[in-house]
């Protein structure tokens, strides 16, 4: 089996002196979509923060065959991991276009970067309409689209998505998840998705992990988890 794009072993994550991740393990395959599920407080967002070095960690994080735990957040972004944070992280006082431009900060290839603006607007036509608007005035769904686009401007190999469905109407959620599927296929971007909306997540992803209070308690393909009795009862409601 080929090496996974991202591999995490024995990862511990700390907020101050509190240990929130108790030594988790998972992997994201090349070109695949993996999802991390769990209830509130299980440590899903913390996991993504740990990968991006936004919190103190212990353990191993491997990306494309090299260890990245211990590197700075900026360096990790430069290596090709783009993180769409929970709450979108919109730069509210900048315009939509400026938000995208910030996403392209690390790009050295000017011409291709300019073309990428057009590609983002093609995925999300609503952003094109609002390109000169102050980003803080966008609706939740539009801000989510903006956040994803900002991350994609990096031309990442791996996209970390933190609860993209949060606070959004079902129709918008569907639209965004559709586009993520397209992005995964067309851009060849692997995705690590953290979601509370278990149904949608299992629909999109091929592999899934279940976290409970900072530990991985279950893993498998999406089909396996969907068929699992316990998952159905606790998380899918039937």
């Amino acid at each position, binding site marked *: 089996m080929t090496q996974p794009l991202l591999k995490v072993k024995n990862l511990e994550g700390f907020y101050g002196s509190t240990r929130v991740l108790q030594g988790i393990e998972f992997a994201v395959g090349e070109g695949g979509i993996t999802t991390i599920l769990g209830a509130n407080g299980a440590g899903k967002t913390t996991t993504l923060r740990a990968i991006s070095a936004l919190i103190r960690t212990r353990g191993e994080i491997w990306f494309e065959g090299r260890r990245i735990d211990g590197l700075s957040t900026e360096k990790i972004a430069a290596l090709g991991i783009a993180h769409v944070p929970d709450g979108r992280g919109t730069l509210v006082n900048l315009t939509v276009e400026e938000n995208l*431009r910030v996403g392209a900060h690390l790009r050295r290839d000017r011409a291709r970067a300019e073309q990428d603006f057009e590609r983002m607007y093609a995925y999300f036509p609503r952003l094109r309409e609002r390109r000169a608007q102050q980003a803080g005035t966008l*609706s939740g769904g539009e801000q989510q689209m903006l956040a994803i686009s900002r991350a994609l401007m990096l031309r990442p190999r791996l996209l970390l998505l933190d609860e993209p469905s949060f606070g959004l109407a079902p129709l918008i959620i569907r639209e965004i998840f559709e586009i993520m599927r397209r992005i995964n296929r067309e851009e060849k971007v692997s995705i690590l998705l953290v979601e509370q909306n278990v149904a949608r997540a299992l629909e999109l992803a091929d592999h899934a992990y279940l976290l409970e209070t900072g530990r991985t308690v279950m893993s498998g393909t999406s089909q396996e988890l969907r068929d699992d009795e316990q998952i159905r009862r606790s998380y899918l409601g039937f």
Partner: protein
Amino acid sequence: MYNLLQQIASGIAMGGIYACVGLALVMIYQSTHHINFAQGEMAMFSTFIAFLCLKAGLPYWAAFLVTLAGGFLLGMLIERVVLRPLKDAPEMSVIVVFIGLFVGINSLAGWIFGHQLETFPSPFPEKGPFGTKLISGHELGTIVVALVVVSLLYAFLRFTRVGLAMRAAAENAVSSRLSGVPVSRMLALGWGLSAMIGSIAGLMVAPVVFLDPNMMAGVLIYAFAAALLGGIDNPWGAVAGGLIVGVVENLAGAYVVGTELKLSVALVVIVGVLLVRPSGLFGRKLVARV
């Protein structure tokens, strides 16, 4: 009528100075979302460095460059040594540190350079254009300098990659880091640039009010008023604000209440404007969806 013109002209002249200092304040706000209460003292310190250069025999333009470089380094040094350790501290604590810097730099300057008033040369010709008595060469020069600085600053923040990165870093450090922006470097750069602008302001102020450690005391509050009146996130606003404050202050002093109360009147006007337009005259209205 001529008297009125003279008052207005002199108001515009002082306004140019307020604008320069105000620009430094806007710069630091744009890059850190902090208000640097010690801005005036930093400018004063840089100007003393210029003074030493001039006394050592350097020509003006050389002293100018040394001061700019010195100011830049001073700013970066303060950011790294004094402010970096406080990046997670509550906002009030940072304000107290700024106050500490204000007092400390002022006291240090007095200790190192002494308290006597020194004259400081102006790089501009003495007479105003076409020999007019309305405005001196230095006063006009100050306004030109303010306009040049604001144009460069605006262009830098709005159109360059680094300028945008700086604004983003101040806006949301985490999101910026996730996009690869080196946030701490941006902060240091912002401080350096703002201190540099401050030293330019100091060089403009010194010829008018003479150089001593308390040189900036009278100017600072007006510079604040100018920056806030114009909208703290808008460099052009700081210039417009500075000119307006200068003129209002002068007219109030000459025609309304006399020099004792002109400070109060100017400030009442400013507060009044802010009540009607809380983000300043030209500031961007900050709308946030709840």
